[in-house]
């Protein structure tokens, strides 16, 4: 194919604006308005890439998004790379770099290392949405003009979803990546997406130089290009009449018109060393007797009667498929219309909201009487690979031979055929191959095309990048980041952060030259021997008000809260109705009709939702209001035997004596000059306080605690030390020791489960399964070698287990595992079948490279008598 630019013409290009880009190291020149494909054609470049599996040269087959062949990787002048785009849809720009693809692109970052593409999303509502800018679309838009006015926006619809929801992508042709994803809610939708030409399948139908007939006319009219010098037209309908005239007007010599309706067929092509089209092999009328439209395409001619015509362009038209993908997205049904030999929207569909007009509805102009022709049998004797170059899907390198294999394997559903052959799974979504595939399958199976149908259409209609779908929600904006008021201090003091839900929490505060393990041991030691402090702001907090809060909490928690005295706190466990532990926390009574609930950090929103659901749907009679106050309070935990001294210094008016302010109580207090609340609760077993002040004063409180504790060497600690301290005491962390299959009894917390009232989940605890003695139970675990810290998640097996016979029966798994300063050794928590009965027994922990022995212990390994919670025990 020797394309060239005509001296004038081209409605889509601006000959006053020259543009150059790089194609495989060659500078290619074109005009503003050219696509990569049209510019390549204008410069006589006909081989654009090689096919994905068979490595065959491929050229430009179409002039639009149906392109299965000319797929390229681009790098825009702005540096952004896009891995796999049809050359027929890429507007050219100065500085654009284009590379051939063998079917697969590569994700590449720009040289700057960051993706600077400007990708947005926006939301719009309209009364009527017309999709399609052709004559039918413009007419529909004109008819739909409303009092509110109308707008025409150049974008591509990607999909139609429920209730008039449409996504569309708008690309701005600039030297960088700029795009907007539109989310449109339309009252009514008019689909005017036109029709797409389809090929006829024959031997060696994939050569550069073989092109859809309508595309050739588009290159002449829109781009002012003569796509070839000597053309053969292979058609079965009247739309090629206009193409013939247009091509002749552009100076192309139409050397033959092979009309299948007269019984003439193109049976194959010849090519040069590079694979380019050099000639067309034609069989005249009587050949047709052996390949009727719906006949079995298995009879071959002997090849003697073939005529060869030299040509550099073969224009094919096998008819036009209405573009029904969007209609089908909305679950509109299709029927095969013999009149145009294509699938059309079935107007009996249930979609009053959606209308299809014009060619998309099957009104293909100029089609004439189509003679359905799908495939031309190979010439010559039947051989094993006679159908091996009859390409059906050029993008996937799938042939009639692949189809025969699929059907021969018994795959008769067109959905199965699609998946087996991969036909229609390329980026063109089977635009040129889909219906042809169904028709060939129908012929082979001896069924009607309409009965075979086409595979389900799914969004998106054109390739769209994940980055575009994410739009601004990328990088730092991918998910909200929540930080506490003291966060700047943590950052300035070297905290290493971890993500807990959306929160950034200090994991530990390493000092110069200190390892993670050393830092955590130091932080733990401070909490057990002197005093340490932690930012506990992220704990979920829910304010509960109303006369029935006590009753409500009795139903929500496994234990009783209605009897809690004002000024006191209680640890509570929450289950779902299935009886599995859902959350825990300390809840305090602020007044007769007011409680302050705390939840785990990651579960705060879920707990509030849980409370709301039960209040609204089961117990609307209860007078309770639940409000999240997590962000209203900044919380600092002051932990350790010297914490009382620190709090005394911070809150001089508060009587901190054990008698006046005992364990599991709270007090209003002026703390560091601010009215707040002090809670005497402990997640470490040590004497400890949790100080709450309004968030505005959070950093001030943090710094005041630091100052007040300075004489005791107060030590900030992070979540890792918190985890170690609580694990030494056997306190579970919901979501770490539990996984939605663990009951309070499994955790050894039957003491927190009331037997005197109903609560959410109680009935489930009575199920036989909940009472099996071999349920996994929470226990401590001490590796025989005290230096070994078992990886969390390690499976545990019996000491006599045969590790060579898989699967090895599992006894349980490690849920938490640490080195402990207080114990002077490693330890773990584990869920073990019948674990409490196994205390003292040895189990094995098979690791990747060795098997470690460990002894099962009580889950409380440190201070089991709780002698430390009021301060350093007196001897």
């Amino acid at each position: 194919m020797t394309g060239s630019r005509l001296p004038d013409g081209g409605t889509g290009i601006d000959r006053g604006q020259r543009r150059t880009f790089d194609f495989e190291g060659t500078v290619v020149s074109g005009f503003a308005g050219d696509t990569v494909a049209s510019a390549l054609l204008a410069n006589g470049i006909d081989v654009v890439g090689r096919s994905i599996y068979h490595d065959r040269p491929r050229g430009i087959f179409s002039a639009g998004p149906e392109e299965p062949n000319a797929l390229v990787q681009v790098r825009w002048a702005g540096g952004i790379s896009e891995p796999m785009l049809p050359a027929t849809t890429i507007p050219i720009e100065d500085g654009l770099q284009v590379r051939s693809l063998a079917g697969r692109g590569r994700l590449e970052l720009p040289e700057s290392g960051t993706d600077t593409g400007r990708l947005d999303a926006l939301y719009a509502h309209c009364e009527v949405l017309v999709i399609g800018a052709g004559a039918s679309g413009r007419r529909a838009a004109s008819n739909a003009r409303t009092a509110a006015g109308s707008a025409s926006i150049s974008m591509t619809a990607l999909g139609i979803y429920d209730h008039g929801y449409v996504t569309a992508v708008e690309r701005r042709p600039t030297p960088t990546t700029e795009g907007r994803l539109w989310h449109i809610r339309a009252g009514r939708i008019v689909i005017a997406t036109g029709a797409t030409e389809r090929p006829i399948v024959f031997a060696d139908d994939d050569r550069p130089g073989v092109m859809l007939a309508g595309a050739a006319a588009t290159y002449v009219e829109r781009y002012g290009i003569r796509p070839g010098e000597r053309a053969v037209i292979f058609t079965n309908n009247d739309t090629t009449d206009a193409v013939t005239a247009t091509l002749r007007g552009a100076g192309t010599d139409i050397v033959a018109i092979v009309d299948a309706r007269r019984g003439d067929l193109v049976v194959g092509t010849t090519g040069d060393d590079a694979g380019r089209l050099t000639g067309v092999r034609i069989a005249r009328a009587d050949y047709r007797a052996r390949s009727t439209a719906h006949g079995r395409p298995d009879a071959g001619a002997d090849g003697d009667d073939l005529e060869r015509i030299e040509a550099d362009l073969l224009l094919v038209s096998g008819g036009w498929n209405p573009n029904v993908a969007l209609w089908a997205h909305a679950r509109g049904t299709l029927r095969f219309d013999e009149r145009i030999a294509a699938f059309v929207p079935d107007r009996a569909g249930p979609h009053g909201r959606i209308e299809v007009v014009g060619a998309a509805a099957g009104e293909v102009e100029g089609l004439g009487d189509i003679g359905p022709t799908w495939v031309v049998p190979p010439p010559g004797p039947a051989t094993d690979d006679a159908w091996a170059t009859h390409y059906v899907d050029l993008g996937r390198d799938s042939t009639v031979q692949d189809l025969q294999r699929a059907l021969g394997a018994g795959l008769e559903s067109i959905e199965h055929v699609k998946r087996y052959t991969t036909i229609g799974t390329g980026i063109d979504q089977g635009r040129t191959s889909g219906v042809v595939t169904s028709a060939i399958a129908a012929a082979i199976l001896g069924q009607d095309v309409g009965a075979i149908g086409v595979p389900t259409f799914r969004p998106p209609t054109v390739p769209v990048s994940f980055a575009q779908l994410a739009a601004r929600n990328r990088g730092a904006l991918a998910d909200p980041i929540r930080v506490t008021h003291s966060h700047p201090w943590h950052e300035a003091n070297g905290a290493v952060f971890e993500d807990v839900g959306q929160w950034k929490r200090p994991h530990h505060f390493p000092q110069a030259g200190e390892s993670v393990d050393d830092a955590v041991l130091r932080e733990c030691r401070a909490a057990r021997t002197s005093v340490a402090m932690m930012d506990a702001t992220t704990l979920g907090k829910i304010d509960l008000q109303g006369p029935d809060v006590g009753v409500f909490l009795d139903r929500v928690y496994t234990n009783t809260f209605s009897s809690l005295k004002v000024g006191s706190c209680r640890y509570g466990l929450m289950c779902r109705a299935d009886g599995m532990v859902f959350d825990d926390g300390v809840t305090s009574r602020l007044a007769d009709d007011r409680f302050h609930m705390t939840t785990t950090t990651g579960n705060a929103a879920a707990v509030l939702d849980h409370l709301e659901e039960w209040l609204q749907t089961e117990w609307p009679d209860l007078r309770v209001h639940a409000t999240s106050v997590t962000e209203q309070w900044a919380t600092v935990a002051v932990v350790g035997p010297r914490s009382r001294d620190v709090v005394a210094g911070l809150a001089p008016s508060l009587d901190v004596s054990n008698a006046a302010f005992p364990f599991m109580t709270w007090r209003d207090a002026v703390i560091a000059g601010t009215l707040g609340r002090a809670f005497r609760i402990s997640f470490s077993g040590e004497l400890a306080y949790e100080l709450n002040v309004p968030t505005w004063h959070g950093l001030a409180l943090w710094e005041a605690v630091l100052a007040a504790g300075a004489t005791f060497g107060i030590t900030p600690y992070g979540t890792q030390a918190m985890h170690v301290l609580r694990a030494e005491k056997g306190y579970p962390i919901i979501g770490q020791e539990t996984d939605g299959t663990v009951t309070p009894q499994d955790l050894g917390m039957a003491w927190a489960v009331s037997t005197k009232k109903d609560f959410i989940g109680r009935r489930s605890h009575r199920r036989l399964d909940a009472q099996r003695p071999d349920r996994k139970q929470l226990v401590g675990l001490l590796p025989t070698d005290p230096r070994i810290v078992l990886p969390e998640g390690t499976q545990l097996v019996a000491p006599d287990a045969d590790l060579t016979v898989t699967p090895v029966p599992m006894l349980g798994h490690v849920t938490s595992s640490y080195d402990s300063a207080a114990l002077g050794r490693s330890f773990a928590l584990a869920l073990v079948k019948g674990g409490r009965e196994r205390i003292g027994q040895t189990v094995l922990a098979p690791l990747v490279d060795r098997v470690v022995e460990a002894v099962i212990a009580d889950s409380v390994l440190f201070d089991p008598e709780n002698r430390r919670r009021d301060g350093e025990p007196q001897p």
Partner: protein
Amino acid sequence: MLLIPCPHCGPRDETEFKYGGQAGIAYPADPDALTDAEWLDYLFLRDNPKGPWRERWVHAAGCRRWFDVTRDTLTNEFGDIGR
């Protein structure tokens, strides 16, 4: 994306809601009176019809109210809205 008719706020995008499954599954008045099998039925077993059914939604990113609504599982068209 469904357009869900919140009885309090009007039609809103599905992303503002959380789903609550089949409507009308009341917490049993006396759970202890139920056999394990009956309790399992309450906890887990739900209808799965093709066609209209009654389901629950909560307008989580809006008024935060739960409501019942009829939806045709075949067409996704909404019918009667409850409160």
